[in-house]
């Protein structure tokens, strides 16, 4: 039984090319014609990959042909963007993918969930057999080990996620946090959305243009606050996100200090993503106030990314051990057991496994 993987990813192609191969409803038919005993399609925004097992070698052109969105408009010979891994190399590639080593942002964990979904859908529809079952189960195990034994997933690597991670380090559960957005810019909106996705529900928006505040408030299920009344909100809120285009600071130590005296037992997290800054830097010296501007957030994101890259070698070592072990499995008993369940991939199975 030949275990192989054919695909393309953000390393080899641009998004337009990936788009033309992702989500082809006819892919399963073509794969069935190509006599794959087991097949699974892993399609995300960064990769389109087919993992398959077949008795005889299936040409890459055949896989590529069935992955195309529009077969009529393209020839079937264009395979230069595609990579192909066989046997142990295929296992190594999948282990690297599920562990986040092959991702655009090293160590991201979303890909593991996507791989699990793809596998689960394929398994339910009978598209996988013992060969892919063992491969994917092992891949999930490897990913877990890499996450547990290295710091590859540690820290946040974008400004928004750093802000959310810091908020969680201060407040724990964000469900009871009150958030005020000062300025209705794109970055503050993204950060607010990230906070909402982590449980924050009490969101208030204040902007010089009341109309814009109202519009954004409707979009993110928040409450608009008149701009002249935002300082009063500092008595109640836990998180303040500022991103106005004001040329002078809006919040200074002398304004905030009297307000803080009334809320001495509660921390205030201020995320100032405006340039020029909306909050005086000496506000950070106040008791219970944690002020982060765009540079400090970027710096933390950068540190996390460096740390993750330092962990790649340790992750590769774990993967190598599993690849060696899995290689023995492929050359040993796996071939014998696979013969019993050889069957062409059903039409619904691959469609279901597409993400």
């Amino acid at each position, binding site marked *: 039984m030949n275990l192989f993987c054919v695909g393309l990813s953000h390393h080899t192609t641009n998004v337009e090319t990936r788009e033309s191969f992702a989500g082809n409803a006819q892919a399963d038919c073509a794969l069935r014609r190509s006599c794959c005993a087991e097949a699974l399609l892993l399609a995300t925004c960064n990769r389109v990959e087919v993992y398959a097992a077949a008795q005889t070698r299936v040409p890459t052109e055949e896989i590529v042909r069935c992955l195309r969105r529009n077969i009529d408009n393209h020839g079937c010979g264009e395979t230069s963007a595609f990579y192909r891994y066989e046997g142990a190399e295929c296992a190594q590639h999948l282990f690297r993918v599920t562990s986040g080593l092959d991702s655009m942002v090293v160590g991201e964990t979303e890909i593991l969930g996507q791989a699990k979904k793809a596998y689960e859908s394929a398994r339910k529809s009978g598209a996988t057999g013992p060969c892919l079952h063992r491969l994917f189960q092992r891949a999930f195990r490897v990913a877990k080990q890499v996450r*547990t*034994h*290295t*710091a590859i997933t*540690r*820290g946040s690597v974008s400004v928004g996620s750093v802000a959310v991670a*810091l908020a*969680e*380090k*201060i*407040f*724990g559960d964000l469900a009871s946090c009150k958030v005020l957005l000062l300025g209705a810019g794109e970055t503050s909106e993204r950060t607010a959305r990230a906070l909402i996705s982590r449980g924050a529900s009490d969101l208030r928006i204040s902007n010089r243009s009341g109309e814009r505040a109202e519009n954004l408030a409707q979009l993110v299920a928040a409450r608009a606050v008149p701009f002249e009344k935002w300082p009063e909100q500092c008595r109640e809120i836990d998180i303040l996100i500022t991103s106005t285009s004001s040329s002078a600071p809006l919040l200074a130590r002398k304004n905030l200090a009297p307000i803080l005296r009334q809320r*001495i*037992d509660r*921390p205030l997290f201020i995320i100032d993503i405006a340039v020029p800054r909306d909050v005086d830097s000496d506000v*950070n010296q106040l*008791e*219970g106030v*944690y002020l*982060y501007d765009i540079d*400090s957030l970027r*710096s*933390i994101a950068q*540190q996390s990314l460096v*740390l993750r890259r*330092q*962990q790649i070698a*340790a992750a590769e070592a774990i993967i190598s051990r599993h690849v060696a072990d899995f290689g023995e499995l492929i050359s040993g008993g796996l071939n014998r057991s696979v013969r019993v369940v050889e069957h062409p991939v059903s039409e619904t199975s691959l469609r279901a496994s597409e993400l």
Partner: protein
Amino acid sequence: MDREFLIVSTTCFLAAVVRTAFLLRSKKFHEGQFNFFAIGLGFTFQTAFLSIRGHALGRCPLTNLFEVFIFLAWSVALIYMLVGPAYRLSLMGAFTAPLVVLLQSFALLVPIDTPRTSKLPANSWLEFHASISLVAYGAFALACIAGVMYLVQERQLKTHQLRSIFYYLPPLTDLFTAITRLLWCGFGLYTLGLLSGFFVGQPLPTVQVICAIGVWLLYAAILQGQHLRRLAPKWVAALCIIGFSAALTLLWGITFTAQMPPR
């Protein structure tokens, strides 16, 4: 024989310390069960030691400074076993273990295990007073450890210098909740211990009573300040450290003077 149990117990706690230090150094720390089991095993051997010693003495083993230190270490481990997992403060074990190792190593290495020449008469009030006070000290010790964790994290958040340990510390608000609960728990037990001291049926040394009331007042002031929102969480955390240092000094004084021959 009982000292061997103590050596094994100290080794268990030391294993938790070494493992945590190694993992933090290699930046691979992960919240596993190892610390909890190592501390649990150490706690079992501590209990075995105290049980054997207690049977030999025919009373609660708090007759000299050595036993007081071990009982204190046992109380710290006991409170950790109760609150650590409950508050998901897994790293608290990493902070608790060094304190226990320090207390037990000191007790084992310094010649303070001096047997009493005269057998103490059984006094249930005195035993209750001593043991409940030491469990209160255990709660204060953990509040102090949580205070250290709070200050470490607060400092890193303020300075934007997020070191490796930052990622494993519990959120600030969770830590503060744990500190408050430990303080209330310790304060309640300490009050019981203080009150029971008046029923031991022996003349009370004035200086010790004043110092004990001083410690009680200090913790009462911390809790009052926190309750009335007069004290910022950072200061509550710092005062927990000061309070425990004062309590430990008092404990040392009480045990030291109790061991001195009567004039």
